């Protein structure tokens, strides 16, 4: 990671009490994001990627227990008072959620929601807040921004609503934007537009971003580094090109292979991953992926592999039998 570290997540654990017992949603995760960098967090539903983002933002459910350290811009977020946190969120730490219909307030106009955020964090009078709102809506590609200010979220399409949510997130020039599945609810042509918009604004504002997604295709061209999560843990972490070209973790390989490819011939059987992720309330003794892993041996079922370094410090994986070793054996 080059440059200054803006965010560092250290040994973060999130436990959620459930009627079935304790659910460890995030299990000792360590991550860093440099200023202006994009980190992709990839994983399937239930892998803990959203809980991780909520742990960073401290927007966890009330019953959740959080431990570890989250250093953001020199401050430990877990030690901040509620008031200080509230000032930070929306100002230098912003978020865009998956579903813009539920993240926007349905009974307030777009203008009210934008101006509210601006005036909460920046000392702007009504006229300049309104002017800036119009500029922001124009910047995120909303046609006729002035008229939009008086509209309600339901009057906009899904793509337009997500643009509004992005405008609100960008409004106070955050240092870090967490985008949690920002395009999952959108159509593919709109998805491309929104991802382009995020990338453009990120470059322009020299903002860092955490892009959380289940789609390896989304992170491939748009991130500097990727962390792959499985059952609450980061199982592989690498600069994006290394992750796709020199992956070591069998789960990463399996996930990529299971994707239907546009360049494959029709009716090509997909190398599916058998089984499904383990029950998070019944943690396994060994590697969480071992029941589904085609390389697993006795040790994998008995012992949890720690994240270890590959050929560079930036590339880490948690596996006793990483891929290259098997490649020689003809797997």
């Amino acid at each position, binding site marked *: 990671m080059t440059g200054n570290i803006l965010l560092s997540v250290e040994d973060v654990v999130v436990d959620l009490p459930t009627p079935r017992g304790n659910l460890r949603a995030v299990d000792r995760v360590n991550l860093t994001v440099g200023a202006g960098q994009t980190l992709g967090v990839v994983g399937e539903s239930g892998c803990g990627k959203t809980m991780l983002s909520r742990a960073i933002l401290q927007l966890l459910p009330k019953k959740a227990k959080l431990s570890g350290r989250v250093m953001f811009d020199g401050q430990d977020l877990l030690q901040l008072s509620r008031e200080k946190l509230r000032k930070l969120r929306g100002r230098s730490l912003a978020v865009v959620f998956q579903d813009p219909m539920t993240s926007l307030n349905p009974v307030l106009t777009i203008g009210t929601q934008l101006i509210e955020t601006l005036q909460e964090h920046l000392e702007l009078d009504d006229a300049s807040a309104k002017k800036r709102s119009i500029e922001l809506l124009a910047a995120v590609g909303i046609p006729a921004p002035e008229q939009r200010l008086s509209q309600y979220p339901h009057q906009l399409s899904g793509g337009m609503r997500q643009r509004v949510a992005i405008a609100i997130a960008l409004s106070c020039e955050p240092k870090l934007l967490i985008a949690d599945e920002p395009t999952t609810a959108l159509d593919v042509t709109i998805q491309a537009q929104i991802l382009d918009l995020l990338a453009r604004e990120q470059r322009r504002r020299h903002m860092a971003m955490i892009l959380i997604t289940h789609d390896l295709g989304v992170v*491939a061209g748009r991130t500097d580094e990727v962390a792959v999560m499985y059952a609450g843990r980061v199982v592989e972490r690498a600069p994006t090109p290394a992750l796709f070209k020199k992956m070591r973790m069998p789960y990463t390989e399996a996930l990529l292979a299971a994707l239907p*490819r546009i360049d*494959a011939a029709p009716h090509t059987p997909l190398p599916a991953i058998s089984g499904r992720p383990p029950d998070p309330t019944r943690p396994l003794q060994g590697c969480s992926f071992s029941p589904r892993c085609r390389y697993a041996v006795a040790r994998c079922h008995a012992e949890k592999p720690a994240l270890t370094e590959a050929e560079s410090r930036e590339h880490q994986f948690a596996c006793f039998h990483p891929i290259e070793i098997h490649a020689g054996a003809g797997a």
Partner: protein
Amino acid sequence: MMLQALPSALPPASGDPLLEVSDLVVEYPVGAKIVHAVSGVSLQIARGETLGLVGESGCGKSTLGRAVLQLRRPTSGQVLFDGQDLTAMQGDALRLMRRRVQLIFQDPIASLNPRRKIGDIVAEPLVISGVKDPAKREELVYEVLSAVGLDPNLVVGRLPHEFSGGQCQRICIARALILNPEFIVCDEPVSALDVSIRAQILNLLEEMKARFGLTLLFIAHDLAVVKAVSDRVAVMYLGRLCEVGPSEQLFASPAHPYTELLIEAIPVPDPDVRPAETVPVGEPPSPIAPPSGCRFRTRCPRADQRCSDEIPELRAVAPGQFVACHHPLI
């Protein structure tokens, strides 16, 4: 043959058609306005073929799938299934015909009754179709559950909430297969599933298709998913077909600008493929007031006056490939 008389081009399927849809129109009122969900779609599906139907949300693809099965009666047009017009059928005749066609939905958990046991859910089509012998029903349920990769002994007595999304989709597939249908409409069957589970279900559908000799209409918004299972692909935009062609050919050389846009918008899982900065092509207009002429013209880089004056008809551009565009790419 009567089909020859129809004005719009009918892209012929290779071989003997099981399903022939001609000039299908579905409109429904919303207040004082009319939603033009499907506006004159014609297509054929050959016996044993999988036709993929792609398009963005609101393009009418699901409505088309339902109108084919007469779950929503079309406003006009014809649906010939094995030579018989479903749109003209009523009551018992239609019910009898429906045993030969089935539907699989997007949300597998929502499409299973949460209060009923899996064994009863899967057996219900048999009950409705008059298989009175419980032992026979049980035998068929066990057979079909094994076929979709579930252990019947562990499954039949349990409730839907005890299963994951992928397993529920297997149960839905079992229920769809139990009457031994010839034709299944799969409406976004894997969109709600995770990547690792999605591949399992796609493989299962392919396997079932081969084993039971099925013909499929596979509706999805994800082009890569559609390509993985389809022999031919039809691209739909705002109620009309833009392009129909053999999968490989359509993806290699798309003729319609919309098909090209869809292909370019797919994120490729390869860090060397830098995503092309998309041309800001806006969003689909409302199906309540679709544009005149070509419905894609408001987002099309090639549009000119002719596109707003004249509706493009589907016409052949290559063997088996049909496009509805005044300025096709090939």
